[in-house]
């Protein structure tokens, strides 16, 4: 019975593992292979950060928050612009001090935003159909896109964390040509890991965090032990806003802060599908799988495909994540860490 159910999962895993190993077998240099792997992991970290925001909100309020991407953009814009303006306004030195203060202010703004969203959007729609709530978050997305550009501007802005962008070579003795890593990527990974630890501590050790977990498990039970649902929602949206700020900072530092940041958020959907809608570890591992999968596919699978069918260029990473998530769904509908759901009649 168990073997029968897990059969397809194992089969898919085997195919993926084989795909992962294939480049090595066909003679790609190990050093380069590792670089692609690292590149994929780094992209995956960024996906994970956005997916984390989705999962937090979905877990606590059952709302699929389409606006997470817009929140990332909004937070990043706030951070970048405040860091730029603060020195002129209050005369603190530009660079790290201004950035720190800007970070604190931006976090405050995200909390305020969470409060406003709860008040104006979620509260009137409480107990509505999930689709209506999803749509409402789409409305929030539009609003934030316009509002963010109005107050922060629509140019490309820099977030300068003061990290060198030049790559460094490591392990040159082990591989021919060495492995290229960028310090920026490493720091991004460290920040992401730090955030996850922080969240874990928050959920495990603080009273609020425990309350949030209670809500996630059972709304009614949580209410009956005296936790006001409204406040919980504000808190969880604020936490998601904070996660968005961190994601925006890391992304913004890497790519520059611009309107298009919000578009990357769509990638979080396959990530949460893969990881399960309610699982924080799922969001992280899902993000990494998607990141590695699509970079590997693009670099190693793309060129042969282009040759074989005489395509006009590769670009399969555009759909790879979704197709991967789809395949995965077909064999395991509840996601990696999701809860299984049985229909009752």
């Amino acid at each position: 019975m168990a073997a029968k159910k897990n059969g397809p999962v194992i089969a898919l895993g085997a195919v993926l593992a084989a795909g992962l190993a294939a480049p090595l077998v066909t003679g790609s240099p190990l050093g380069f292979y590792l670089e692609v792997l690292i590149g994929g992991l780094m992209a995956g970290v960024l996906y994970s950060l956005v997916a984390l925001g989705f999962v937090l909100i979905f877990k606590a309020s059952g709302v699929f928050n389409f606006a997470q991407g817009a929140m990332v953009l909004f937070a990043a814009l706030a951070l970048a612009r405040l860091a730029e303006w603060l020195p002129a306004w209050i005369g603190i030195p530009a660079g790290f001090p201004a950035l720190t203060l800007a970070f604190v202010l931006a976090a405050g703004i995200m909390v305020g935003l969470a409060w406003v969203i709860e008040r104006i959007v979620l509260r009137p729609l409480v107990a509505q159909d999930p689709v209506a709530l999803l749509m409402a978050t789409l409305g929030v997305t539009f609003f934030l896109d316009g509002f963010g550009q109005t107050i922060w501007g629509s140019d490309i802005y820099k977030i300068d964390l003061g990290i060198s962008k030049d790559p460094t070579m490591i392990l040159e003795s082990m591989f021919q040509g060495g492995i290229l890593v960028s310090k920026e990527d490493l720091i991004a990974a460290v920040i992401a890991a730090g955030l996850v630890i922080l969240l874990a501590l928050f959920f495990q050790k603080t009273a609020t965090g425990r309350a949030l977990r209670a809500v996630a498990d059972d709304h009614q039970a949580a209410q009956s032990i005296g936790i006001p649902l409204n406040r919980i929602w504000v808190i969880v949206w604020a936490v998601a806003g904070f996660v968005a700020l961190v994601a925006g900072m890391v992304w913004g530092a890497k790519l520059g802060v611009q309107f298009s940041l919000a578009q990357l958020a769509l990638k979080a959907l396959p990530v949460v599908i893969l990881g399960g809608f309610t699982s924080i570890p799922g969001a992280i591992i899902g993000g990494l799988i998607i990141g590695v999968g699509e970079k590997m596919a693009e670099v190693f699978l793309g060129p042969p495909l282009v040759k074989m069918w005489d395509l006009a260029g590769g670009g399969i990473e555009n759909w790879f994540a979704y197709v991967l998530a789809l395949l995965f769904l077909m064999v395991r509908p509840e996601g990696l860490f999701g809860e299984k759901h049985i229909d009752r009649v």
Partner: protein
Amino acid sequence: MKLRISIAAAAVAAVTGALAPAGAAFAQAKEQFFPVLSYRTGAYAPNGVPFANGYVDYLKLINARDGGINGVKATWEECETGYATDRGVECYERLKGKGPTGATVVHTLSTGITFALTDKSFTDKIPIITAGYGRADSVDGQVFKWNFPLGGTYWGAADMLVQHIGKKEGGLDKLKGKKIALVYHDSPYGKEPIALLQERAKMHGYDLSLLPVTHPGVEQKATWLQIRQNRPDYVFLWGWGVMNSTAIKEAVAVGYPRDKMYGVWWAGAEPDVRPAGDGAKGYNALTFMAPAGIGKVHQDVIKFVHDKGQGTGPKNEVGEVLYNRGLVAAMMSVEGVKRAQTKYGKKPLKGEEVQWGLENLALDQKALAAIGFAGFADPISTSCVDHEGGSSARIHTWDGSKWVVGPDRYTADQQIIKPMIKASAAKYAQEKKIAVRDCAKELASSK
């Protein structure tokens, strides 16, 4: 409730406005109307804004300094396309009937919109200027009566880049076995140069790899990993908006030398390099018509427009690459009208009349100097057969704080491009069932 009523009222107003015969009230006004399709929001705003500012500033200058185009006041209205084709079409439809004579000439500022409007131009009879973009085959004025890719096309641009690296290598024959990667925006814009690069690859034996980047272009990790693996000798960058700066950043991250990177002229402006910081040092791009810098026309803009508090954008952007290109684009519109006025008189002209002006442009160095564009625009001389009017460009290099223009001027090799244009235009004419003009005959009958 109140909100809803006012929305309804607004909608009614808009509809009736659209229904009313456009411009009846202005029939007597001595005005020439220029629609301005721009994008000041969205993923491409960083590049769209300075261009639009330059364009509008020049029209303001014409009115403030010269009192209009030979006494005909320039009017304009901006419409936000967001770089989206359907919005662009809507904007065009909205603006084309405005002013006493309708839209004079339209700059689409997007290859996608160009494709869509080209179809409509045959019935609307409004010329489309695509200075340095648009469809390459529209050089053929016999098929594309209304399109004017003035000053250059992407086929020309790609050709010049190949010439440049050929020269660097010590001869085009030295390109044999070299590897060139094209990193391009995955849209008609980015795909246009492929045909020419493949044609040239056949001639010189270099190896071309194609690396598309999806809109908006912030995800290029895999692209640059491939570049790191293949180590092409040169990378051509055909990007727009945030894609360009991202490409440079990713190049830094994989350690690809920036001085081996060559951008098209839309990937060689300040917003493309500034976000990359020091990493952009050594990056090259084509520059056609208008390099960065201040010339006579800029001084005029500052004096007549900005100093009067009428500047469209911030003053310090005057003289930047894309701003200058906006100025040049507006200059082309105005010069087209001026030329047409010599035939039809100094009054508001119809698009159809301006088409003649654009087709008979003869802007030599002297004429350009007279309007303040010395050093900021190249001579243009168009005809019924050739709607491009000359195609030349230089390479400029970012030194970390400004663009440094290289010494060599390249001209597209028409021997290669002409037949491609002919073939492509003929295919279009056949698909669309368009009657091809006979330029020799038209010329004879007009004399």
